[in-house]
């Protein structure tokens, strides 16, 4: 998880990965999730975090979380076998 912790994320959603030099854009939701993942939250913790920070209606939050984690795996920002706990 060191790669994730090393990411530099600006308020505007600009992300710089000092390890690879790659840059990304994230939206507010992803920004909150990255923060939660860095703190090691499990799935329930992440869902709770989203509900606390955003006006959520009927979305499938666990599925959206897995979608983001898949992107992180694809970009090598978390180890290949990484899964959210819970």
């Amino acid at each position, binding site marked *: 998880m060191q790669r994730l912790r090393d990411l530099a994320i*600006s308020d*505007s*959603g*600009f992300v*710089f990965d000092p390890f690879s030099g790659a*840059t990304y*854009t994230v939206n507010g939701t992803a920004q909150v999730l990255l923060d939660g993942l860095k703190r090691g939250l499990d799935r329930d913790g992440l869902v709770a975090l989203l509900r606390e920070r955003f006006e959520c209606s009927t979305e499938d939050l666990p599925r959206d979380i897995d979608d983001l984690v898949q992107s992180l795996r694809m970009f090598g920002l978390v180890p290949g076998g990484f899964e959210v706990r819970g």
Partner: protein
Amino acid sequence: MNAPLTVAVTGLNATDNPGPGVGVIRSLRHCRDLNVRVVGLAYDALEPGVYADGLVSDVFMIPYPSQGVVPLRDRLAYIRERTGFDVIIPTLDAELPGFVELAPELAAQGVGTLLPTVEQLDLRCKAKLAALGDRGLPVPASRVLTDVAQLYTIHEVIPYPLVVKGPYYGARVVHTLEEAVAAFYKMVAEWGYPVIVQQFVAGQELCVLAVGDGDGGLVGAVQMRKTVITDKGKGWAGVAIRDPGLSQLTATFMKATKWRGPCELEVIRDAAGGYHVLEVNPRFPAWCFLSAGAGMNLPYAVAELAAGRPLTPLHDYRVGTMFVRIALDQISDMDAFSRMSTSGEVVRSQGVSR
């Protein structure tokens, strides 16, 4: 010093196949009579001109021409709100149709341009260059092909060697049918149909940067011969020249087309002293800073005319002035790039309040 003028310029892609924007902006800044603020318009966060010191005050990203005029119109309205630009100088082939279409609307809002008409743009497109021949300009014999079989009899109308060209870019000199067929397929693979076959003319490659007034007259023109050419065929160094035959040719072109705005004529002068127009680019060339350096600042002239301001007569240019391009690495922190990629704008000046 004149009243301040805010000019928006595109083409900040100063790569090894450079867009003309940086040359246009440096020319504007070179002019001591012009109190100019420059707004850069970029298509990508990494266009080098965004990061050059002291080049553009503010930069805004604009939508690709392939997106159509509606997004461009919306985005320009926003940028105008933010910066209050008075004039736009587009510098890239692909974006010209969009800007030409928007020009009347922009004019109604008080934004000036100096652009050719749709018909003029059409007339100089590669596949139709022969039409310029009908208007009294010396163009090499050419044929537009859509079928490789047409090459088998091409020598009856245009003898070898030939130049096989793609519709937008790419050109190859061929001496035999086999080479021609190979070049044909290569052009099709890279650029699609049609393929243009042109008579090869040997001689000296000369260029003219000319600005037309839209009534058949010439605002000014600077002639140049390339002295260093890159493997992409781009001039990397050149020298200002004066050839009366070329001046004559430029005047003929202006009269024949009533061209409005800047353009570049690419011409070959053969050993017998004959001229052949190979191509007409409907915009400033990347080497346009030579015009400022040689004393006839044509980007300045275009900005003033587009703004509808009277132009003080241009000085003649100094023959023998050279340009030598250098590649240098700009240093930037992550900040400008981060702003370009998240908000699509970097505003360094105070902006204007309107």
